[in-house]
């Protein structure tokens, strides 16, 4: 079975970017229409794909190059359940961020560039999750990374330029490590197709070479995902970008270009060894703890949120790492699948609440013009929609029922206890409590704390597009809790978990065996 929509996920946003640049000069507001139509199309088709995929793997061979003697030679784009979930996240958040930008970006000059770069970034991320080929993953990561470098510097003020320089140097280093890893893989395997690499390297790979490749790719994609020893660029880049872009970077880019690729490579391409799985779990735990400790002292809202991104990604990596350890030991598959479920569920939830929080921060900055918590206060009286949606998001991220963050954290903690990692479960609980404290501070200083009289000069609620995006994400935060129900989980997330646990399900449709 082949899904005809697969190439459109990359082609449509690319076409949108070029049309915006060519025609945007002549027709007023065309850039907005192109942006929203492209993202609407992508969102609808990603939901269509998610419904239709149901555990199948659908392969698109670019240019129709069929395998020769059973060896894949063309460029393969592969859509499976995990990809479909990631596509839904990317394009939903992208749609809402574009709609939000209608008001937010009108303050800046050269809107055409903004929408064109935005479409390019979405094209890159869609390409990363769709490609079944290691070198294409690199190319698409670079497309999304280069457009995000430009978008971080969109304000061209001192801070943005400094942040983007740091981001570019570290991002460039990450790409070089990835490219070196690809080179080493090609040296031994003589192929770049993910499924073919697994069969070519065989069941008993040469140990030193294998470990070197794994470390190179782990550090490369770890830099992209900002796992703790590689996190230095994230707080600067994510806090300096315009708010809709911060929402995209924090909500989607670190997942699509970092976590997703790590999951795909380590579950489906490598044979997981226990040492590497323990290393990944340790890195995740470190990110979780250090991220939240660094977040405590922050007074800049967006910096605070950026550090929490590191910490929440730590939850995802830790939970998936526990799953990897169990898969490597080849014991207790049901607990491993529970741990991976917790990780994926938290990944989806984090996309919803973290982008909502960045949009809230943008709304506050839009009206007051500052990001410093100490200069705010009493905003709940003027901005009811912003205040209530940010309350929902804060409660979600700190794990208060009935919001989505509670359920995913609960599942992660249950999985850690069932896998007998009691210390990790305890750390997860403590980090969650510190997160709650940090967000109580955010709520108190930004929205309450001060009695302010209403008069003509007091700030108003933000314009409709911004309010709409925030409320939609707030509702999404509540609705995503439904994924914990067994029926919903089995239809949406179970196929993705199965593909990760059993790499033969991913390999055989691609190689046609």
């Amino acid at each position: 079975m082949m899904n005809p929509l697969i190439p459109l996920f990359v082609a449509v946003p690319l076409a949108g970017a070029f049309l915006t640049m060519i025609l945007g000069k002549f027709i007023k507001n065309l850039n907005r229409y192109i942006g929203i139509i492209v993202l609407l199309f992508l969102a609808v088709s990603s939901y269509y794909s998610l419904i239709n995929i149901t555990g199948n793997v659908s392969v698109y061979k670019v240019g129709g190059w069929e395998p020769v003697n059973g060896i894949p030679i063309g460029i393969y784009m592969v859509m499976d359940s995990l990809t479909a979930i990631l596509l839904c996240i990317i394009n939903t958040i992208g749609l809402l961020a574009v709609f939000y930008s209608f008001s937010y970006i009108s303050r800046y000059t050269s809107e055409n560039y903004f929408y064109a770069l935005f479409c390019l970034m979405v094209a890159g991320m869609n390409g990363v999750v769709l490609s079944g080929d290691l070198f294409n993953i690199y190319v698409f990561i670079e497309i999304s990374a280069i457009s995000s470098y430009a978008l971080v510097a969109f304000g061209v003020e001192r801070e943005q330029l400094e942040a983007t320089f740091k981001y570019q140097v570290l991002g460039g280093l990450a790409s070089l490590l990835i490219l070196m890893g690809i080179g080493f893989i090609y040296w031994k395997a003589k192929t770049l197709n993910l499924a073919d690499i697994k069969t070519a390297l065989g069941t008993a790979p040469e140990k030193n070479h294998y470990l070197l490749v794994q470390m190179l790719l782990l550090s490369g994609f770890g830099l992209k995902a900002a796992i703790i020893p590689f996190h230095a660029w994230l707080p600067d880049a994510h806090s300096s970008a315009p708010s809709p872009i911060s929402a995209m970077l924090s909500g989607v880019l670190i997942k699509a270009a970092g976590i997703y690729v790590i999951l795909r490579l380590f579950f489906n391409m490598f044979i997981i060894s226990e040492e590497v799985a323990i290393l990944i779990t340790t890195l995740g735990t470190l990110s979780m703890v250090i991220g939240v400790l660094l977040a405590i002292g922050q007074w800049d809202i967006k910096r605070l949120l950026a550090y929490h991104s590191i910490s929440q990604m730590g939850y995802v990596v830790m939970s998936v790492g526990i799953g990897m350890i169990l898969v490597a030991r080849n014991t207790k598959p049901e607990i491993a699948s529970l741990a991976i479920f917790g990780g994926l569920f938290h990944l989806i939830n984090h996309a919803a609440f973290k982008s909502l929080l960045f949009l809230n921060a943008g709304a506050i900055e839009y009206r007051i013009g500052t990001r410093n918590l100490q200069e705010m206060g009493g905003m709940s009286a003027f901005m009811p929609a912003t205040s209530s949606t940010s309350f929902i998001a804060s409660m979600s991220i700190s794990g208060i029922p009935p919001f989505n963050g509670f359920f995913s954290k609960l599942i992660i903690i249950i999985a850690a206890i069932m896998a007998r990692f009691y210390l990790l479960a305890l750390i997860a609980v403590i980090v969650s409590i510190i997160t709650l404290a940090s967000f109580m501070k955010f709520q108190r200083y930004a929205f309450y704390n001060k009695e302010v009289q209403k008069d003509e000069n007091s700030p108003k609620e933000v314009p409709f597009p911004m309010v709409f995006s925030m409320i939609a994400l707030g509702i999404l935060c509540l609705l995503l809790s439904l994924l914990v129900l067994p029926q919903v989980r089995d239809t949406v997330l179970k196929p993705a978990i199965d593909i990760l646990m059993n790499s033969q399900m991913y390999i055989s449709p691609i190689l046609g065996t």
Partner: protein
Amino acid sequence: MVVYLLCFILFLVGLYGMITRRNLVKIVISLSIMEISIFLFLALIGYVHDGVVPIVDPANPDAKYVDPLPQAMVLTAIVIGLATTAMLMSVIIRIYRKYKTLDIREIKNLRG
């Protein structure tokens, strides 16, 4: 084996420069040196001793060809590297206009 080692030494030279230099332009140059070392490495992977240009010749079916795929990869990677370098240089020009210096020790608004 010696060429691979030289490649790795070039990579380390770039890494050393990136860590120790204080001038933004020199950091970018170091990044480019690292990039070049990896391109060389990729090109070396495809090399076959006594190999010929990989265009299939019907008259001579037993010819040994060099592997063309790493060459294609290097071309793509060079284009990407060019885009990254151009982007970095344009950011450096903007930084110089705002800060009037290229010294990384004086460009540190973002902390903590």
